[in-house]
């Protein structure tokens, strides 16, 4: 699996890129993701009315339908929806990537330990704990936890992370516990390699592929859950734009001011789509299936 021969690695990279690009759709996904990231980072420069994402109201331009001045129209506060959606990408991205960044280390570490000690009481205890978390769908647990905390983006991220980490623990555990019995691990042990060496140098590298795949595939879901939280008002608080909040607020003005909730709803779908396609690509790329 792990090799240092440069041109082999270079080859494998080329190969991976081919695997990824073989499916044109995932290439599209890649560019969509890229687009989202760029918009999020440069929102202040790209957005037509950056001010509208902050403390700003202009009731004289409230609820204007899409026009050249306001491409996606304005909301009941007279704020440009396009600009707000662009800024909302930030929250969405932070949610998606942030949560993944929080849970993967935790989940993977726990999984590794459980996997290393598979068959012992450590394994049992850890895995039962994850079972407990998993009996409830992540969204439910996240809702409950988020409700207890101050309503901020970070807290809702914490809530999602709290509900989500066990899935990584289980995935890693699955891999680790099987790798653990591989010959090369046994050997490493017999020649007296340290626990940490075995866990991180021997086992971990062989678990990475599925973990990365899962990460890539799940960013979208995390964002979805985040959007749901903010839909019920448990996320980022106004005036900072959050897509879920924008949809739920906009929904009040349907069907007449349809544009208020349409744009953010489409934005959510766009983001999730982007990350799904991208994730599929990553999956193909890391799959061991021969081409």
């Amino acid at each position, binding site marked *: 699996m792990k090799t240092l021969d440069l041109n082999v690695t270079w080859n494998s990279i080329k*190969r991976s890129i*081919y695997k990824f690009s073989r499916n044109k759709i995932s290439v599209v996904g890649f560019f969509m993701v890229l687009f989202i990231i760029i918009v999020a980072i440069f929102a202040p420069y790209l957005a037509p009315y950056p001010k509208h994402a902050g403390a700003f109201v202009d009731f004289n331009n409230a609820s204007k339908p899409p026009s050249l001045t306001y491409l996606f129209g304005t909301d009941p506060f007279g704020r440009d929806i396009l600009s707000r959606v662009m800024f909302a990408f930030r929250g969405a991205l932070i949610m998606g990537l942030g949560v993944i960044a929080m849970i993967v280390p935790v989940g993977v570490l726990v999984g590794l330990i459980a996997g290393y000690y598979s068959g012992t009481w450590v394994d049992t205890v850890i895995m039962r704990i994850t079972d407990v978390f998993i009996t409830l769908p992540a969204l439910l647990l996240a809702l409950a936890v988020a409700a207890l905390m101050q309503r901020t983006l970070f807290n809702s991220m914490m809530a999602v992370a709290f509900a989500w980490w066990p899935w990584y623990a289980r995935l890693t555990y699955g891999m680790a516990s099987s790798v653990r019995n591989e010959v090369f691990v046994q050997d490493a042990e017999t020649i007296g390699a340290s626990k940490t060496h075995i866990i991180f140098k021997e086992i971990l590298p062989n678990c990475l592929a599925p973990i990365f795949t899962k990460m890539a595939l799940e960013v979208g879901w995390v964002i979805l859950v985040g959007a749901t939280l903010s839909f019920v008002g448990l996320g980022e608080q106004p005036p900072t734009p959050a897509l879920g909040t924008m949809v739920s607020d906009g929904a009040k003005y349907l069907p007449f001011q349809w544009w208020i909730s349409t744009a953010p709803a489409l934005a959510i779908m766009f983001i999730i789509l982007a990350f799904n396609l991208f994730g599929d690509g990553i999956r193909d790329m890391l799959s061991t299936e021969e081409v």
Partner: protein
Amino acid sequence: MSDLLLNIKDLKVGYKVYEGLLRVLNGVNIEVNKGERIGIVGETGSGKTTIAKSMLRILPKTARIFGGEILFQNKDVLKMSRSELSVLRGQGTSMIFQDPTASLNPVFTVGSIISDVIRYSRTLSGSRIDSSQMKETAINALISASLPDADRLLANYPFQLSGGMRQRVCIAMALATARDLLIADEPTTNLDVTIQDQVLRLIKELVDKKDTSLILITHSLAVVGEMTDRVYVMYAGTILEQVNTQDLFKNPYHPYTRALLSCIPKLSGGGIASGIPGQMLDYLNPPQGCRFSSRCPKVMPICEKESPPLVEIEPGHKVACFLFTTKQGA
């Protein structure tokens, strides 16, 4: 000639892969007469299975047929309509696969699989068949494949049977749907050595009884020796020699065939290549010349330039090698 059953003319098949097109079959010619048993010998990867699958049009999606024709009873299989195909598969030809485990759907009982097979083969000949008959026919089919207490077997799932039994089930089904030609693709490779013989003998006697032609695909010359009348020696998707079985052992011409024979003592089911220096060629960019040239002990300059035609040297004995064609290189 009237008794010619199958005639494969200049068949070219390749596989699409990441690096490009694997040109596997490079103009293969095979003839099978009614009731004749021929063998196709070659190392694993020489394209034997590809030939078999092309004959039934069950090649994987990545396969590309870019030339030649497969005349079965003078009809080109490659041009057949759906209905013609189903007749071909349901009644004319059938095939026994390498791996009996993989070739039986794991979640259905032997009974339901085999009776489906029989039902459709019957409906082709227009004869409806009711369940009681069906059971009977199924049981008979199994018994004919000399399987013990067949009626209990019907209720079993494939994974409850031994490898040998699975292969027998497959054989039973294959014969139930093959009147004219049976293709056996390394039917014994995945079986326990002890029962390989039984299975082979079973195939042989069944074929004889029903006077069905047989194409036996294998890498083992021993098997060919005892099972077939005529042999095609294949290397890297080309036929190098075509000869009656007796002559094969008496006076083989082609250096490759010789090499094969020289390995027989070492031969033990496994790959022949072990005995021959050099390795299988790369199908991506095969040499324009003779495909064996890279490994040929007697290689000549011309061999790298042109690919030798298959010429009849003695009656019924064809060889594709410049050593024996009149056209000698300087």
